[in-house]
């Protein structure tokens, strides 16, 4: 075999090695990109709220509503949660601004006396019970302790539901792995226990599992 042929083969082999490693590396990177960017788009179903709502507008200086003005407790102490349309109609019996969303609120819901089918971000499994009243009234926990920044939002973000389990991303934490970055990113049992432990509260099973 001539030396030039040996050299050519050696060069080709080196090139093939580089090409092979590149393809191998491309496989790794491609899968990582797919797994971390595209897969989440696939596994979670995004559900938009029926209409948009600006917490910033309502809690800002002009309107200056407090959380409890809309998200109130009834006379039995039960947390009402999302206000009924009748509450909105107190101010929005007719349009008072230029927002298209407000127009939809008035025309589609207030005038027709229909409730808004809000999408709930954090419905717990059926065997779990979370009491706002216990935390807010008994535990004196401020709303913003858990819902920090909510009052500054202009839009309602879409809810994300797993296409497999059906549970909300808000329940099981905002990270894809099952280890949330901070204890308060979800409403898992570990999150509850972590916060309780942090504040020196002991809980029993039946506090949450009714």
């Amino acid at each position: 075999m001539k030396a030039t042929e040996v050299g050519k083969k050696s060069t080709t082999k080196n090139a093939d090695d580089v090409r092979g490693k590149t393809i191998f590396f491309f496989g790794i990177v491609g899968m990582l990109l797919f797994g971390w960017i595209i897969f989440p788009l696939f596994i979670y179903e995004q559900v938009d709220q029926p209409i948009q709502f600006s917490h910033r507008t309502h809690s800002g200086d002009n309107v200056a509503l407090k959380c409890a003005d809309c998200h109130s407790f009834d006379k039995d102490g039960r947390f009402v949660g999302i206000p009924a349309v009748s509450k909105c109609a107190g101010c929005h019996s007719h349009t008072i601004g230029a927002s298209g969303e407000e127009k939809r609120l008035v025309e589609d819901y207030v005038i027709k006396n229909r409730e808004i089918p809000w999408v709930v971000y954090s419905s717990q499994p059926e065997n779990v019970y979370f009491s706002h009243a216990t935390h807010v009234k008994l535990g004196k926990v401020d709303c913003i302790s858990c819902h920090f920044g909510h009052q500054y939002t202009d839009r309602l973000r879409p809810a994300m539901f797993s296409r497999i389990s059906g549970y909300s991303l808000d329940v099981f934490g905002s990270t894809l792995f099952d280890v949330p970055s901070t204890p308060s990113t979800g409403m898992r049992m570990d999150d509850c226990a972590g916060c309780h432990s942090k504040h020196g509260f002991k809980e029993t099973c039946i506090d949450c599992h009714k």
Partner: protein
Amino acid sequence: MSHTISRRDWLKLVGGSAIGFVFTPIPWKILDESAKWTQSSSFPYGRHREAHLQSDGRISFRYTTCTLCPMACGVRVRCAADGGRGSLEAVGMTGTPGHPIGGGSLCAMGLAGHFLRYHPDRVGNPVKRTIDKRRFAPVPYDEAISNVVLAISASGNGSVAILDSHPDRTISYVYRDFLGKLKNGIYVIPPSCDSMPTTVTDRSLNTGGLEFGYDLINSRTIVSFGTPILDGWGTQGQFGSISEARRHRGQDKLRLIQIEPIHSRTAQLADEWIPVRPGTEYAFALAMAHVMVHEKLCDIDRLRRDSKDFDGLAGNSFVRLIERFSPKCVAEMTGIPADRIAAAAKETVTRRPSVVVFGGNPASGPFRPEEQAAFMGLNILLGSIGTRGGLVARRELPGPFPASHGSDNPGHLAVKTQLADVPDGSIGVLIIDGADSGSIVPWQAIQRKLSADRHLVVSLTSYLAGNSVNADYILPSPAYLEMSGDVPTPPSAPFASYSLASRVFPGPATAVSPLDFVKRTSAALSVRLGYRYQSYDMESLLRKRAEKIFSRGIGRVFNAETGENEKLTALSLSQFWNMLSGGGCWIDEVPAKLPTTRFAFLDSESRTPVNITSPKRADSGEIALMPVGTRGIGTAAQSNPIMSKLNRESDLRMPAGTVSLNPVTGEAAGLKDGVKARVLTTAGSMTVKVRFDRSAMPGTILAAVGDLTGGSERTNGETQDSILQICKIENDSTWRITNAAIEPA
């Protein structure tokens, strides 16, 4: 270099992707989400997502009555529609708010009662014990019935008995009618720590079969002999009311004096705990009576007038009996100073109305009849019989059958017989109803009643647990919430009440109700049942009973839907039925009038002093073995996940197979905390785990009774070792205390 993609390139790409795949969330997330999906109520239909939309109708509530024990608590079942199957699934249980008996609360057993349908010990098909007696094997239902019928026909001199732990239900009347038609049928009630047997009240109070309950809420002083009043005894509503009455009411604040050797939860929570030595509770009671009589703290004239044997008899009298039980003498027996005995007696008298409660512990059973007579004597001295805040007689709750219907006369019903009154070795065929009294009955107490040479035991139950593991045949009945039934007055309640336990979910096709069992058995035996229920279903019988209650026109009815009470007279029959079947409750508000009678402190027949056995003495060298447990955990029959979590994993209750010893007692026996030991009695021995507890009285072994770990593997008939197996069963079917020894295993 070639520009075509070779097979090797593809392999490298796939290899790289495979490595990258492991570092993406894909496999882990899919695994995690799939696991969550399998735990959701929508599995395997995948419709759970819809629950996150605020759609109406997915969650609904059903109201019914708990039948896990006789306490008749109202239950609100939270149900979720199971979209794929179009049926309901229970997802939560709470007490019915405002319920007159349950008070809106449920115990740990009831809170997770809906899980019991899926209990691993649930019996799916009829099974019979194999010839080697070690296993159960499936058997066709018809074959099982045929063999039961054959056994009844061939029972000869042996009797046919039905053991009913929850008497006075409509099915109980059916049992009694069936047994009444057999020449050798007997209807048997096991001992329970909740009920006060009419044999006791009839003997002491001579009240002709009236049933009594405790009016605890209106008392000012409760003297409890070993009864776990604040730990699962009675109804949940009663517990709440007692707690309220102990905190508030000013001068009339309720005071609880707990007298027992065990530092139980009730003892811990009581206003005063008097730790008498094991087996000396009766002596303490008689010493209290001694103080009351000698210091003339009670109405002596009334007692002479109203009782047959208070004093003055030439022979024995109550006064002569209590002469032997002076506080000084009893102080030595009980280990309680004489002045403390006197102080308890004086306080009980001065803070009237007072009532003496003597139910006993669910695991160790009721007191002996002689001891109960001593406690009842205290109630008579205190004037607590038939008075507000004392022992109150209930008005009778009508049964489902007509009062007089030719051959259907209820006189043909088999009479209620206490297990203790059944002759030993007399039962040829025993049918055990699956209802639970909340108190455990050791198998030996039942076994001694069975014919030694030939007997057959049939269990109509949903679970292979408790005494059903000793049956020859297990015929599965629908589980809790799967069968309609009724819940009569709770045993310790002061007033009569009636609730329906409506079916919430359908039971499995293989489950056969006890009513159908009786119908088929009686048809095969050609027994003509008295009433026409051969053609009735359970709901029709329940309606008959509701009609009879309605016809009395007394009491009020609680509406579970609205939480309000209405006078029965303000309702139509259909409204009454709808309220009952909707989880409501009828409750009487007036006690029964007591007949003019004379009380008896002593045994009315032999006229001899109460025959009380010698007390156990801690310093006598014998160790007293005492079973302990609570309702539910004591029955070893129906443990649910919450109880398992609370009692075993969280160690809130001493687990079965464990004994608690005072370190002094343990070290004297050569034991250390946490070691294995062997407990020996005349009935056998058992290996247990030792736990040192300074609150345990020296000279006692507190042995936990409860369910054991395990589940479906027990369907092979593995023996459940229980400390009760080595307890001595007395002739009167009690087993409170057994002389024992303990040594290192």
